[in-house]
């Protein structure tokens, strides 16, 4: 069932807006702007009434699946419930209607919120200060690595141009490293799912800027050798970078700063419950230990003499990484979340997230291969290799889950697990949901045994079937073409 494109709805002359009449003396346009600068023909935008528009986008929304629709166990994405009050407060006129270039005295409320959020995130992560400017996790990584490089350059160690990244890392880690001019060295994961300290020791040298680590890793396992790993990196002059994608497992239990990390990025849209928006906006604050504070992006928000202010006087700063001060409205929602949860609440979040993951893992491991038999943290990785031997892939099973009304887990990641399925149930799900999901997955495992063709043809109950991605690449159609242009 396809929905017509908005361009195919409507008729010439239909309007979905109302604007006041021009109340100033109207001048002829080409007297104000020379004709050569003016547009000759209007863009082919829709011509629809407001009701046409609302029906169109409502129909589109119904083809989507969100956290409010049901279970959404995407591993490393932390698809927890997005509290409604946080949406409301971020839309208060006193936040949404504030111009970012107003002077400090006119925006004390915004600056106070940013300053307090900076300090609360610093406390949660064990860092000295946190910049809220990066717009997303990958942007936080990029900023954090720029800080790392600026620090080494400041210490006259320009030769540190390599960075060590485990084979389980998110794809953004190596991509961000490449964007700051680092050469990536991969370190292998051992049979228990840890970074191998012996191999790490061999890789370290005076050319290595640092190590990027996700802890718990993307296998959902806590790095058992973290103390030794931190020592190895620090002893040869490197810095430790913490990818905060999986912070939801450890709040109030341990902190990246206490484990030895020097730079941390967070994903407010994961750990701190702000909605993912269908792929953004996110927010990727970057926090650092004391000796790295001078390198943070500008402006830094300070509190002096009873006033909050934007401080641009940071000579060692990497500079600005985007316009203004970050995705402020997203920060407002995350701030509201922390203010609601408090210390005990955040600890409870992590404990429950870990409990839920272990509960589901224990139910599923009888039917699916579990490559690392350990207590997991907030997520776990199964392998569909047993089912693959019967000709049914992880992708097939993921598609089949949709027929039963659930969103699939993250699939084929991390890359080191064959036919990987990465489940992160989050703390906001209850036991009945987990039991039901386990039932459905066991049912699918049985279907693989009894009627593999059925699973391979899934999904059947979604608005559309499996799409031809090869065709999409080979014959790219990346926009709608107006009929008049087709005739040209």
């Amino acid at each position, binding site marked *: *069932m*396809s929905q017509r494109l908005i361009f195919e709805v*409507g008729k010439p002359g239909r*309007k*979905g807006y109302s604007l006041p009449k*021009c*109340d100033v003396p109207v001048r002829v346009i080409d007297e104000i702007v020379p004709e*050569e*600068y003016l547009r000759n023909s*209007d*863009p082919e*935008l*829709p*011509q629809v009434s407001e009701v046409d528009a609302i029906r169109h*986008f*409502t129909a*589109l*929304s*119904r*083809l*989507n699946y*969100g956290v*409010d629709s049901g279970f959404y166990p995407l591993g490393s994405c932390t698809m927890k*419930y997005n509290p409604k009050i946080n949406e409301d*407060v*971020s839309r208060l*006129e006193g*936040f949404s*209607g504030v111009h970012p*270039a107003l002077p400090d005295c006119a925006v004390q409320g915004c600056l106070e*919120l940013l300053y307090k959020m900076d300090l609360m995130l610093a406390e949660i992560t064990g860092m000295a200060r946190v910049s809220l400017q990066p717009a*997303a*996790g990958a942007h936080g990584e990029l900023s954090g690595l*720029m800080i790392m490089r600026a620090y080494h350059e400041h210490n006259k160690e320009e030769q540190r141009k390599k960075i060590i990244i485990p084979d389980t890392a998110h794809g953004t880690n*190596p*991509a961000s490293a*490449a*964007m700051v001019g680092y050469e990536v060295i991969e370190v292998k994961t051992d049979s228990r799912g840890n970074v191998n300290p012996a191999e790490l020791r061999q890789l370290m040298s005076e050319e290595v800027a640092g190590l990027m680590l996700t802890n718990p890793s993307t296998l959902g396992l806590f790095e058992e050798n973290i103390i030794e790993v931190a020592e190895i990196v620090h002893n040869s002059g490197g810095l430790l970078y913490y990818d905060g994608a999986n912070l939801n497992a450890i709040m109030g239990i*341990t902190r990246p700063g206490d484990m030895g990390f020097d730079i941390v990025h967070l994903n407010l849209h994961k750990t701190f419950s702000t*909605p*993912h*928006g*269908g*792929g*953004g906006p996110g927010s990727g604050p970057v926090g650092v230990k004391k000796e790295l504070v001078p390198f943070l*992006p500008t402006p830094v928000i300070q509190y002096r003499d009873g006033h909050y202010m934007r401080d641009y006087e940071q000579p060692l700063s990497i500079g600005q*990484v985007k*316009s203004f001060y970050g995705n*402020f*409205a997203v920060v407002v929602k995350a701030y509201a979340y922390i203010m609601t949860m408090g210390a*005990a*609440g955040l600890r409870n979040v992590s*404990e429950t997230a870990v409990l839920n993951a272990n509960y589901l893992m224990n139910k599923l491991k009888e039917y699916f291969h579990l490559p690392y038999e350990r*207590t997991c943290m907030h997520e776990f990785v199964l392998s569909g290799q047993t089912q693959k031997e019967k000709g049914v892939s992880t992708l097939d099973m993921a598609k089949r889950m*949709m027929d039963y009304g659930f*969103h699939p887990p993250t699939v084929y990641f991390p890359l080191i697990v064959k036919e990987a399925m990465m489940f992160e149930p989050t703390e906001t799900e209850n036991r009945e949901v987990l039991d039901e999901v386990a039932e459905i997955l066991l049912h699918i495992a049985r279907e693989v045994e009894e009627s593999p063709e059925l699973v391979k043809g899934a999904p059947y109950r979604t*608005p*559309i079937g499996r799409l031809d991605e090869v065709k999409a690449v080979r014959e790219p159609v*990346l926009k*709608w073409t107006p009929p008049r242009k087709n005739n040209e």
Partner: protein
Amino acid sequence: MSEYMSGTDSERKTMLAKMDYQAMDQLFHDVPTKVRLNRDLELPMPLSEMELARHMKALANRNVTTGEYSCFLGAGAYDHYIPSAVDHVISRSEFYTAYTPYQPEVSQGTLQAIFEYQTMVCELTGMDVANASVYDGATAIAEAANMACRIIRKREIIISRTVNPQYRKTLHTYARFNGQRVVETDYQGGATDIAALESKINSETAAIVIQNPNFFGAIENVKEIAALAAKNNILLITSVDPISLGVLKPPGEMGADIVVGEGQSMGNSLSFGGPYLGFFAAKGKYLRQMPGRIVGQTVDGKGNTGFVLTMQTREQHIRREKATSNICSNQALNALAATVYLTLMGKQGLREVASLCLQKSHYAYKRLTDNEAFTSCFPQPFFKEFTVKSRYPLNELNHKLLADEIIGGYDLGRDYPELENCWLLAVTEKRSREEIDRLVKKAVEKI
């Protein structure tokens, strides 16, 4: 007990017992004792929903807003009208609580909306292909510069000083770390000095970056700069105000190779600087060098039309360190707001908004410069923003206007030492004649 968890303490105990655990702590046995926190985090006491609402309102009340004050401040963020329906659409939780549309069968809503957005961006800019958006207007330029360096295989970018200072700062930050050289080129009479620009092009130049209308509000001679770029086999990157494209010629028709811009003006609230969206479009031949997500149309097994994320071999989750960018999101909800905005305004509405901006800004300019306190700075034609020189120190003037509930213009002296007391004012369709007259009266009164 904390909010937003549906299980209870006793349920948690039962679940632990089912796995043969006695205490929650046992789940964390892999965390070495030495790195345990062993104390409570030092955070404020938790608030109930009512207390939170009160607390947030108190913070919000300490900010000046465009709802209560007349706003003449722009400089990269604009107080445009947002139809009510926009927020209703983006408040549908099927949109805002969804993840990236990696599973297209349950994400057709997001995917089709992005496809419609890409089409609208191409229509506005006159370009062949557009991505699903990047973080904002500033990072869009940094990503475009990166793309140009890859295409031309050179490392130097020339950027006009008439480009938004924050965009330039962001470009400098990115360039410092990825080995590019950024050269700034000066202006003459409020627009890029084309002769000076030409003299800076050399064998290492990959691209020229301009903004139109530029940071001073002035309209640049894009066509001539594009011809210069083409003559030298380098690329022209143009950052553009999308609202201006309701009346101004699209950069694609004037020879731009990559067109980017800040999309906030299209249905997104000011929100103290974000989240906004950076739109990003290019000539078709550069598709495979584009950063960011792209949605394409295809079919399912039964021949039904559907949409998928495509050209993913450019992206970090496949290519890792060889990707065209590290970006792994788009500003999907902001792009949706822009799509709904452009749908509602449509062909006619966008032209009308642009015309209102043009007429009102020119009325304000005339009224201000009719007084001897304000003189014209630059001779160039402008769109919705313009620069005047004030006889009065701007810091003082702006603070006095705030007391009259008027948000005055941007002090260009902050970024351009040579433009002391030059005042950049933005007049959108939201400002009434009465508000403009009041601004002029109050601004003149001070002197």
